[in-house]
């Protein structure tokens, strides 16, 4: 088996007196979908934020492509998040003032792409996620399921190597949740992107290749190559 693309080892992270992570570790290979499961407050989201370089652990290492991301400069880490990583959250976190196509084009624009080119790519991704018809609407004018598919398009538009999805269906009903999961996993398979899927819903986790369970800041069923 190939080496994990992204790998966390022996992570410890406390917030005040609360230890959110206490020796957690996991890895994900290119093209692999890993579900991170566990009860509320178990440390799932903290683990995801450490893996994504959003927060720095008190101890332990996170490596991407063999490089320790803690040793990168803030600028390099931001660039990594913008170009190599994609993010989908429970609530789409779309910018309400922008149209859907502008929202999807945003990561490309921040990376310096021209508007026309960025929006053409954004429209392609909106169509692939079956929301091409709401391209000119603002987020407040689309349904929850459509908004979440727009958020998935925004996560995929830069061609990320790793997609972080934190409860991506948490605010949707079963039908729309399944639709989002089907499209997200199909798109990640096509682009060979890895997906780290934080969820407490077993039916959502069933879209993964394997699961890592977090409990009290520890991980169980950790598999390294």
């Amino acid at each position, binding site marked *: 088996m190939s080496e994990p693309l992204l790998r966390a080892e022996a992570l410890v992270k406390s917030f005040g007196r609360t230890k959110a992570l206490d020796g957690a570790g996991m890895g994900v290979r290119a093209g692999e979908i890993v579900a991170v499961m566990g*009860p509320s407050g178990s440390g799932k989201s903290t683990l995801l934020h450490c893996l994504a370089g959003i927060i720095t652990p008190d101890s332990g290492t996170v490596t991407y492509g063999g490089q320790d991301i803690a040793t990168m400069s803030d600028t390099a880490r931001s660039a990594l998040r913008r170009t190599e990583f994609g993010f989908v959250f429970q609530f789409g976190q779309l910018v309400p003032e922008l149209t859907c196509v502008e929202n999807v084009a945003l990561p490309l624009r921040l990376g310096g792409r021209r508007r026309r080119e960025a929006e053409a790519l954004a429209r392609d991704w909106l169509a692939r996620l079956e929301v091409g018809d709401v391209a000119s609407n603002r987020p407040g004018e689309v349904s929850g399921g459509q908004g979440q598919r727009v958020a998935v398009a925004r996560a995929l538009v830069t061609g990320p190597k790793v997609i972080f999805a934190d409860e991506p269906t948490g605010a949707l009903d079963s039908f729309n949740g399944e639709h989002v999961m089907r499209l997200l996993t199909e798109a990640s398979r096509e682009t060979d992107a890895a997906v780290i899927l934080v969820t*407490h819903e*077993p039916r959502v986790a*069933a879209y993964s*290749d394997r699961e890592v369970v977090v409990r009290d800041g520890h991980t169980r069923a950790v598999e390294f190559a």
Partner: protein
Amino acid sequence: MSIGHTLLGLLEHGPRHGYDLKRAYDEHFGQDRPLHYGQVYSTLSRLLKHGLVTEDGIEQGGGPDRKRYAVTAEGVTDVERWLATPEKPELYLQSTLYTKVVIALLSGRAAEEVLDGQRAAHLNAMRELTVRKRAGDLTDQLICDHALFHLEADLRWLELTAARLADLERRVRG
């Protein structure tokens, strides 16, 4: 599954012979368990005896059994009564999973490992169903979803029990 009522329901679309009925049954409901010819003919013979179906001629030039059957007015009433009667909800009060957890705790074994192993087995079954659902037609999707929701209920129970394991251990070990 009441095969009798199902066959009566299929006959409401018009008279059919046994082979046709088996084919229609398998197409709609027999994905994992197709009906045996023996079951079709024994069920039809019982329905005939109770006046719920009647013989409706014999097709010419066919094999040994080309008898056609039609549903009677009593048969239609029977289907209506069946549809109008809710199925008794399964209470799931005898759970092997619960028994295993308690026995593990009583004997000082690691109950968490029982739960972890079961979670992995359930998730693998759910993955297989999800793959099948994605490749399947609407019938497959509905059948797989029914199974997936039931497995999910078990998994939620496994998680809740894992969270309460320390309390449960204190109680069962006194």
